[in-house]
């Protein structure tokens, strides 16, 4: 009986199982995960924290789905992998044999080395257990300090604010998420946060967390200011959980190194999702990202290959839609930006290194109130885009970037001032679809 072993209960692991079952109806699939909650939507935690959804809603699969997939699920922690023996040892002493193995264990929040980090009331947002912690502290506390950048920092800020706490958000640099957003976009987000009553402290670095009776009582900044608070949220970046692969002698760099087939340095071991550092043939280097869509597609591709296919993972264009200070924001392709952000180290959740490739591109932008469109215009196609607020054009633009549509007919109009960029794109899109015979005007706005 062919044995497939999947370590991890996230979208990469689950998608791999779906792919394997499609090709192999009878092989034995075992899924090992150390998280009690099993498979749930990690991005949904943000909405659970603000109270938009109850906890039960976080689970996309019911037990029946796993029964239908005929998966044996084990709640256990992997102690080590023995590639030559094709065996995995669990912490409880059990040993599991495999023919093909997938490591999809994800990434975890980077720790800060600031003194006081072990006090009660210091929180992060990696998983459901962290979300429970946050809710517990938010019930009893009055003031929060959040340190970090990217999407997770705002999720912490919004979680505390929506529960009625006063929130201080420390930015080490001069603006928010400077390695993806430009100045205007950073300021849009910051202004909205301030409107919600959040206090932003610029050029402020957390130096120490001060405690009283083992609990958080306040923080000290590098500048010597003391701010009283009862809870501290840290979101300074994440790191792939590559330890288990490293110990097994697999090739790792920042994550577990895999080729376009999601294969590690061992022919029978694959890796996918946040833990994997996938070689991108177009960029010629391995890229880390922490995105749900790629995790799912990587997992699926890995599953197909584990079951005998030889399918490369087609990366497409790095793409994410998220909510920043209540504003739906789509980030597509290469949007440029600084290589480093002062508030985070390495990658953050919902981020892609692909966004930071600096294209030789011009910028075309349109601003209407809080609707912001920034296009990165290459020689004859769009290389990237960022849309904040109104999302009407996001699908069209994604298509134009992804398919490298020749935009020479409108390039000049886009870059010259005086032409409303949104209209230029909308008209161009309509023309393309009319030519294809597609009735795109059927798309109805709600």
């Amino acid at each position, binding site marked *: 009986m062919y044995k497939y072993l999947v370590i991890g209960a996230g*979208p990469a692991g689950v998608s791999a199982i779906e792919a394997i079952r499609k090709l192999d109806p009878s092989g034995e699939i075992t899924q090992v995960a150390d998280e009690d909650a099993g498979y749930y*939507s990690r*991005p*949904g935690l943000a*909405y659970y924290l603000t109270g*938009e*959804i*109850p906890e039960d*809603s*976080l*689970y*996309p699969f019911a037990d029946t789905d796993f029964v239908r997939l005929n998966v044996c699920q084990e709640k256990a922690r992997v102690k080590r992998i023995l590639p030559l023996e094709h065996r995995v040892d669990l912490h409880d002493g059990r040993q599991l044999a495999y023919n093909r193995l997938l490591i999809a264990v994800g990434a975890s929040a980077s720790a800060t080395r600031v003194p006081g980090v072990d006090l009660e009331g210091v929180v992060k947002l990696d998983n459901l257990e962290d979300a429970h912690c946050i809710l517990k502290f938010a019930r009893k506390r009055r003031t929060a300090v959040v340190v970090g950048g990217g999407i997770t920092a705002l999720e912490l800020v919004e979680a505390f604010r929506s529960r009625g706490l006063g929130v201080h958000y420390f930015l080490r640099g001069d603006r928010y998420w400077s390695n993806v957003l430009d100045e205007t976009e950073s300021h849009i987000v910051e202004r909205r946060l301030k409107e919600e009553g959040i206090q932003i402290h610029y050029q402020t670095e957390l130096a120490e967390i001060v405690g009283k009776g083992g609990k958080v009582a306040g923080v000290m900044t590098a500048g010597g200011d003391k701010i009283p608070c009862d809870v501290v949220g840290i979101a300074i970046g994440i790191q792939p959980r590559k330890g288990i692969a490293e110990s097994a002698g697999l090739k790792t760099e920042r994550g577990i190194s895999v080729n376009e087939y999601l294969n590690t340095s061992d022919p029978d071991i694959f890796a996918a999702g946040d833990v994997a550092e996938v070689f991108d043939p177009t960029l010629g280097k391995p890229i880390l990202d922490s995105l*749900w*869509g790629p995790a799912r597609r990587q997992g699926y591709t890995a599953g197909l290959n584990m079951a005998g296919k030889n399918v490369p993972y087609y990366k497409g264009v790095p*793409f994410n*839609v*998220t*909510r920043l200070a209540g504003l*739906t924001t*789509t980030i597509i392709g290469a949007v440029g930006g600084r290589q480093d952000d002062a508030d985070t180290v390495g990658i953050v959740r919902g981020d892609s290194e692909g966004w930071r490739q600096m294209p030789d591109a011009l910028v075309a932008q349109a601003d209407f109130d809080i609707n912001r469109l920034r296009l990165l215009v290459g020689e004859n196609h769009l290389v990237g885009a960022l849309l904040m607020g109104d*999302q009407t054009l*996001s*699908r069209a633009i994604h298509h134009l970037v992804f398919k490298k549509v020749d935009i020479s007919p409108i390039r000049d109009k886009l870059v010259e001032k005086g032409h409303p960029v949104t209209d230029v794109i909308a008209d161009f899109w309509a023309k393309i679809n009319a030519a294809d015979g597609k*009735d795109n005007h*059927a*798309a*109805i*706005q*709600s």
Partner: protein
Amino acid sequence: MGGKSVNRMPMNKRLSEETTKRQAIIEAQVVPDTSRCVQCGICSYYCPIGIDVRRHAWLDIPVLDSHCLTCGECIARCPRSVLRLDKNILFTASIEVMNKLHDKDLQKAGENV
């Protein structure tokens, strides 16, 4: 018949607006853009009929359930702009098929003449 006039627009214009709105709703269904979806569950949670819209986004299929009211709640609530109302391909296909059948009938009728 009688009663207060709540809308000062002429009757025929009002009817035509209502018809257009209803036609738009009838012709449309909720369509997901799967690549944006993170399976958070907001859509399914807010559906007044209890349709598992989230599962449709996972499977990349439009909501074909006839119970769907096209109320737009899921579309409005999705934090990632995954869902949209788009023209219902079922009805479009029917019209095309019916036209084809009509043409075939005419052809047949022509042959017999």
